Every structure is written in C-alpha cells, then in structure tokens.
C-alpha cells in the first residue's frame, strides 16, 4: 500500500436551513480512488470547484470523508486518535501566502510547527536552520514576512511545513496568487524537496506547465477523477482535455496542431525542447 491511499472516497457538503432541514447537498468528492507511492511527485489537475482542494483537506485530516476510506501512511484518517499523527505525516501548503504565516518573524514562523508537536528547543533550532536552508531563505530569517515577495512567503510556508519533517506535503494551489517568477520559485522548491529529501509531493494546481515534471497526474472534474496517467499519456489526449475546458502546455498544443496539419510528430510532447527535437527530426527524415 502506498503512503496515501483513498478508496471510494465521498465527501458531501450539506447545507441546512434554520430548522436543520437539508437544503441542498453538494457532492464535492465522488468515489475517488487514489494511490500514491512514497517518494513520488504527483499532480492533481482541475478547475475551480472540481473538488481538488476538498481532496487535499482530507489528506491532512482537516475534513472527514462522508463515505469511503482514506489511509495516510497506513493510518485511517477517520479515527480521532490518528488526526495529529496524520497531520504530522502529511503537511500542507495553502494558496494564500499571507494567511498561513503565523509569526511576525520568518524563523519564528518556521518554528511554529515543531513547537506545536513538542520538539525540544535545541532541536527546533536545528530544524529551522535546515528547513530555511532547504528553501533558500536563510538570508531572510530575521525579516518580517510582510516585507517578502509572494514567492518568498510561500517558500517560508514550505519551510514551516518541512520543519515538522513530514513524509508527504500537499500543495493546495500554492502558486495561484503568485506572479510567474514566484510560481517558478515555489515549483522549483517543491521539486528539490522531492528529489533531495525524498518527500512525497502532491501538487494541486490548474496550471498545466507545472505538472509536466510530475510522475503521475490525476485530472478531476465535478468531484470525480476523469483521467489519470503519466503526463505523456494525459497530454496525448489533447482533444479530450479541450472538451473539459482544460489547457494543455503550449508546446503540446503546437505539436498537436502540427500533427493534424500532417506533420509526423509523436503525441505527448511536453516541453519546448522536445518539440524542437521532433520538428528537427521531421526535417531530417524529409531530406533523407
């Protein structure tokens, strides 16, 4: 079993009127199956309201499933006594950088998580040191978070999660409120954690460019997982993605148009470099 395993997960948001009668039921998650192996970098794609954030909050035990089951590192999230261990195992980075930084000094914020789980003072300092170095924010340790850029704030938030030494980190649209530079910083930090510390990463996003380096992608719509596969498999299905009003990376789109125009280009091109190489090889074969 992988580090995160969901089976037939259902979550319903129930609205009640003043007398407690059910007004409406929104099914945010509908029979979701998920299996993430330790050390993987996976991505979950989808529009606003597709249920991807709801799924993320389940992994951190912030929401409890209505039906079905979810295990994090072998622990059933529905058991009350597992809530804190689950949160220690699976950290979470949220969308809004301002609303997840608690302290008014960078290093104190990074120390907040370890303080909560009762880490001794000396070890807190070591962890803060290591986490800040891992995201390249050591220089700013005594700064106020208010003076940092969006990307830097998100990196502080990542360090804050890292300091709790989780096995897995869920990124819930960490780049939605950032400019392109900040977006790159954050995604790079996530990849580095995955590569160097072996942390399992679940990246939730609606930017296609950010997921091309993932090992596996789940695409969600209306609470259901509608597609899953490696990036190459997913982005080979350009028509299907378009039908769901999802973008594809620019290089993939160009490759697809060229192929339809009659050029012999393979499906599932993800990066600009691959596209250039494919076009060059087409030219070679025509000459030859």
């Amino acid at each position, binding site marked *: 079993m992988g580090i995160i395993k969901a089976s037939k997960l259902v979550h319903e948001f129930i609205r009640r009127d003043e007398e407690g009668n059910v007004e409406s039921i929104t099914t945010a998650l509908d029979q979701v199956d998920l299996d993430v192996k330790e050390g993987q970098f996976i991505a979950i794609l989808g529009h606003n309201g597709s249920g991807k954030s709801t799924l993320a*909050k389940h992994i*951190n035990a*912030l929401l409890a499933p209505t039906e079905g089951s979810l295990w994090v590192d072998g622990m059933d999230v529905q058991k009350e006594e597992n809530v*804190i261990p689950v*949160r*220690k195992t699976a*950290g*979470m980075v*949220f969308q*809004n950088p*301002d*609303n*997840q*930084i*608690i*302290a*008014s*000094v960078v*290093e*104190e914020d990074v*120390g*907040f*998580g*370890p*303080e*909560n*789980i*009762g*880490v*001794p*003072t000396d070890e*807190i*300092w070591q962890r*803060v040191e290591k986490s800040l170095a891992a995201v390249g924010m050591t220089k700013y340790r005594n700064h106020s*978070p*208010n003076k940092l850029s969006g990307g830097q704030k998100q990196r502080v938030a990542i360090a*804050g*999660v890292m300091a*709790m030494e989780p096995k897995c980190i869920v990124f819930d649209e960490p780049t939605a409120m950032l400019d392109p530079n900040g977006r790159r910083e954050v995604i790079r930090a996530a990849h580095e954690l995955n590569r160097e510390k072996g942390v399992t990463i679940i990246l939730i996003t609606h930017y296609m460019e950010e997921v091309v380096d993932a090992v596996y992608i789940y695409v969600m719509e209306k609470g259901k997982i509608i597609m899953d596969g490696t990036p190459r498999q997913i982005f080979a299905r350009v028509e299907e993605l378009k039908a769901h009003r999802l973008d594809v990376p620019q290089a993939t789109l160009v490759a697809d148009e060229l192929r339809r125009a009659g050029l012999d280009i393979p499906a599932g091109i993800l990066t600009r470099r691959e596209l250039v190489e494919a076009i060059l090889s087409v030219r070679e074969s025509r000459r030859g």
Partner: protein
Amino acid sequence: MIRDITIGQYYPADSAVHKLDPRVKLFATLIYIIALFVFRGIAGFAVITAALAAAVHISKVPLSYMVKGLKAIVILLFITGIFNLLFTPGDVVYWSMGPFKLTDTGIQNAVLMVVRLIYLILGTSLMTLTTTPNQLTDGLEKALGPLNRIHVPVHVIAMMMSIALRFIPILIEETDKIMKAQMARGADFESGNLLQKAKNMIPLLIPLFVSAFRRADDLAMAMEARCYTGGAGRTKMKPLRYNRRDAVTYLCILVFLALVVVCRVFLP
C-alpha cells in the same frame, strides 16, 4: 497619517535595553507609571527624569525619534493643559472672566499634567520601541502564567495578541486597497459632516470585515494543519530565561521606586 505613529513600533538596535528580558521591561514600565503618579516635588521629578534619560540613553533610540511619537497626542496635551489652566480653583487668582479663571494651582496642575502625560508616552513607547511584539506577548504569557491556575486562558490570549499584531500591517494595506477601489467606484470619504462621514465608511468597513473573517478562517485552518492544539504540550523555540543583566535591572527598578517614595515622604 497612520504611519507617523511611533507608539507600538519596534526600533531595531543593539543595546542592553533591547536584550533585556521582556518581563523585566514590563515590570519596569509598571513601576515607572506608578512612580509618575506618586511623585511629588522637584526632587521626585528629578529622579524620574534622570531614570528616563538614562534608559533612553542606554537604549540607543534617538530622542528625536521618540519625540515624533508625541505628535499623535498633541491635541490631547493641549486640551488637558487648557482645562487644567482655566478651571482649577486656587488661592491666588491672576485673571478671571465668567467661569474661566487663572490661578496659581491651575498653572501648577496644568504643567504637572502635561509633563506627566509626555513622560507617560515617552516611557511606555520606550518599552515598545525596544521590544518586538512577539517578545512582548511572550513576556506577558510567562509573567501572567500563574493566572492559568484560576482558569484564565493566558496562552490563548497571548496567541491572539501576537496574531493581531501580525495582521495589523496586512489589514492596513487592505484598507488602503479597498478605499482606492471604492473611490474608483465613486465613493466619497472626504466631504460631509461627521455623521455623513461615518456613514460613508460603511462601504469600506463591510468588505474589510468580510475579508478579515475569511483570513481568520484560512489562518485557523493553516494552524490546525500544523498541529496547533492550544498551549498544552507545546515547547518553545525561544524560551525566556533570566540572566544577570535582568537581575541587576530588577534591583535598579526597586532602588528607583524607593527613591521616588523617599522623595515624596521626606522632602517637601
């Protein structure tokens, strides 16, 4: 306007006052305030002035920077001065007109009150200028710790204070943004009488409150995600420990209080 106020702001510097334990500074401020209200006569005043001057000097905070903080209370000082000057009955009346009169006690009181207020602001702002908000709340939490026994949620109160302080600049920025956005939609925050102006604030306050609640919700979730469950079982990254400097300062504070009391009791 909001940015001019230096009360409650931190002035980073490397001084002995900055390095003091926040509990010592809180205690010192308390004693200082008490002293301000019990002193009598020139001698007592001299003791307080000397103590304040010494503290400011050691703290390396420029006096001009502190005086700027007084700007915010100029009107208050003025009103206090005028009232004391014109409404105090006394033995020698220098001038009178209707209900107003200028007496010797009045002049004395006016000067005393204004000086007292100025000293009060200078002294307390010295504490906030040399102590980060976090140290301050940490100090309060530790100093008020015994209240836990009578079920005062000291940790929770300290946590709320430090979060409030963290969000003040964010909310100020947000206010500015909403104000501009509403002005672009034709809102008018400048004209009209007082009541009108208060009414005009509604389109500013409602979005601000909505956004503050949303932020609070997000923050609560982020704290929960990082295993926050309240004060129990928490360790500290920067625990407060007294050292020799703090002990010496405690001694100085007590000597200071004794001097002020002696001056009050034995000197005219």
